[in-house]
């Protein structure tokens, strides 16, 4: 049927454009940190908490901030807000359910270099499992009380798009794909490419033959 061929052609074209768009884009790279050391490793059993700390200097072009909050399997909702006084300059959020990682990446929009006394506030939503936080105490809790989330400055990493695109890094990615496997060599990357193309060609040919 002609409609199936046309649909297949359009869908394949869109997919190819999307692949090219990804490849000409740049991976994220760490541009700096907030210098807060992981002196305290705390465990949180309840969420709905917020802590604020001085923003410090943020590298220009930062689009993602990674915060030292670790979840075993499904992390909570985490919101970051950059505030100047009570005015929100920028905000980002990672929805709950993110996987197992020692840091959670939060996409931020419209971050600019700080000009004065901006603060960055981290809000953790309700939690379904215990989470770990890492950072440095910024104030001492009252005598006899335990250090709370609000007493901590959290470790943060600033990420921004690298200067090179994925495509221009292809040879180094191919080189690394050939390391640490049963058989060494850049040819592994080409084998993966050939297998991937074979899968696509077989699937498209079968679709054309059977679905028309």
């Amino acid at each position: 049927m002609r409609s199936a061929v046309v649909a297949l052609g359009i869908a394949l074209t869109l997919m190819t454009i999307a692949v090219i768009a990804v490849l000409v884009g740049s991976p994220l790279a760490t541009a700096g940190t907030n210098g807060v050391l992981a002196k305290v490793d705390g465990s949180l059993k309840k969420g709905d908490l917020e802590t604020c700390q001085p923003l410090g200097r943020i590298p220009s072009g930062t689009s993602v901030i990674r915060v030292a909050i670790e979840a075993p399997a499904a992390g909570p909702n985490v919101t970051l807000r950059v505030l100047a006084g009570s005015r929100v300059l920028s905000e980002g959020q990672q929805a709950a359910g993110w996987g197992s990682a020692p840091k959670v990446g939060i996409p931020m929009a419209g971050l600019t270099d700080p000009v004065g006394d901006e603060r960055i506030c981290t809000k953790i939503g309700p939690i379904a499992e215990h989470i770990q936080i890492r950072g440095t105490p910024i104030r001492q809790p009252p005598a006899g009380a335990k250090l709370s989330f609000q007493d901590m400055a959290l470790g943060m990493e600033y990420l921004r798009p690298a200067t090179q695109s994925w495509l221009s890094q292809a040879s180094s990615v191919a080189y690394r794909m050939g390391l640490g496997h049963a058989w060494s060599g850049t040819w592994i990357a080409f084998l993966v490419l050939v297998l991937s193309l074979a899968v696509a060609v077989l699937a498209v040919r079968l679709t054309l033959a059977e679905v028309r």
Partner: protein
Amino acid sequence: MSVAKAFAAVPRALPRGRRARGAPDARRSAASLAKAFARVPRAAWVCALVACLNALCWSFLTPPFEVPDEPFHFAYTQQLAENHRLPTSNAYAFSPEEEVVERDIHLYEVHQSPENRTISSAAEERSLEEALAQHPSRRGNGAVGGAYYSPPLYYLLQTIPYGLASGGTLLDQLQLMRMLNALMGGLTALFVFLFLREALPRARWAWTVGGLGVALAPMLGFMSGAMSPDAMLAAVSAAIFYLLARAFRRGLTLRLAILIGVAIVVGFLTKLTFIGLAPGIVLGLVVLAVRSARTHGRSAYRNLGVALAIAVSPVCIYALVNVASGHGGLGIVSRSLKFEHAQGSIFDKASYIWQLYLPRLPTMRNYFPGLFTTRQLWFDRLVGFYGWLDTSFPRWVDNLALVPTGILVALGIRALLGDRAALRRRLAEIVVYGAMCLGLLALIGLSSYYSSPSEGLGYAEPRYFLPLLALFGLGLALAARGAGQRWGPAVGAVIVVLLLAQNIFSQLLVVGRYYG
């Protein structure tokens, strides 16, 4: 004597009369097997090839041990092959060789730390090669981590590639073992295609849409490209769906009963998750026997008995051995199922399981504060969730995926509602598949309920749904049919490209995560 010579000697050792009868029997069996293979449509073989090549591709691009539990599964096989004994503990202390590889590929720095890349320089590669060249011991102390409670069949099979590559390094053995899994991925796609042929006999082109959809599913590729019993469980489950669908169309013959019984045994001996499917399968067998009894009399119940006897025999033997050796009836399995530590009322468990998959009802205690489980634990993770639960797409991709998924679900419902007469006619069959699905979901939920105090939501992994791939394929085929005769093939073609795209972007995601 080599294995080949031993097999060759068997016919000669038989008495003359038996050999004379046995030869034509063997020829007849071989001929009927060849006929059965010839009846499988070419498209089914192509689907199997696509799944196999895709899994092979994943096996090369996923770094060693960067798949959930792969180090444990490897250790189990190594224990069987080197020490010729079942594992003795769930500790995390493996053979010196495996420990060397884990150290030199930086396993514990990389897994669950997406900001860290795997081995990336010639110096690190040399260090790994030099460490392996010293031939560290392959004998562990019987510890296999989380694989301790698993049944041994899958690992016994994996001793074949392990032995074939024993002249090489651990990495060679692991790659060959992953290739065996790739074959299982191919079998899964093949059986799903055959299941669709039985379930939707009038829509030939839709079989291809469902079969290819499953073959290209990145989660099948990821798990079949690794060393994990999940791939074998997926293949066995798909085979059972096919056999049941065939029995629903053609009746429960003795041959089908035997095949279903054997498939159940293989399932039980592959992975304990299979227990979740078992009640639905038994229900299916009972329904089939009752139906067949109307036309074939009591012989239908004999076939049911044969299937069940074959199915439960290994469980009975296992329980007898355990009781005789002074252990609990289900041995280490009962510890895995945690019957010994049962806690909470049945309502608590039911409420937890409900909320693990669906939005909480007003009267329920909230087990997942802040989580929309249907979306955030399952849908987003089905879109893409790789590595050690640490690699996923950005949120906007999950949001985007909601659009085609919503359209396909609507089309699938349209297809079902469009043929209500067929739905009514096949209600019993649908209930059986539903029971298999619910049984698996309940088992995953119950395991999560018991383990959540110590492991959090570690069971919220989409790979546990792989035994239901046949139903996923059915859903895709129905969605294509739901678009009607005119647009159905076009929608089918788009579905195939959607899955192809999901697979390609998943592979790019994994490449970027480990080698970027």
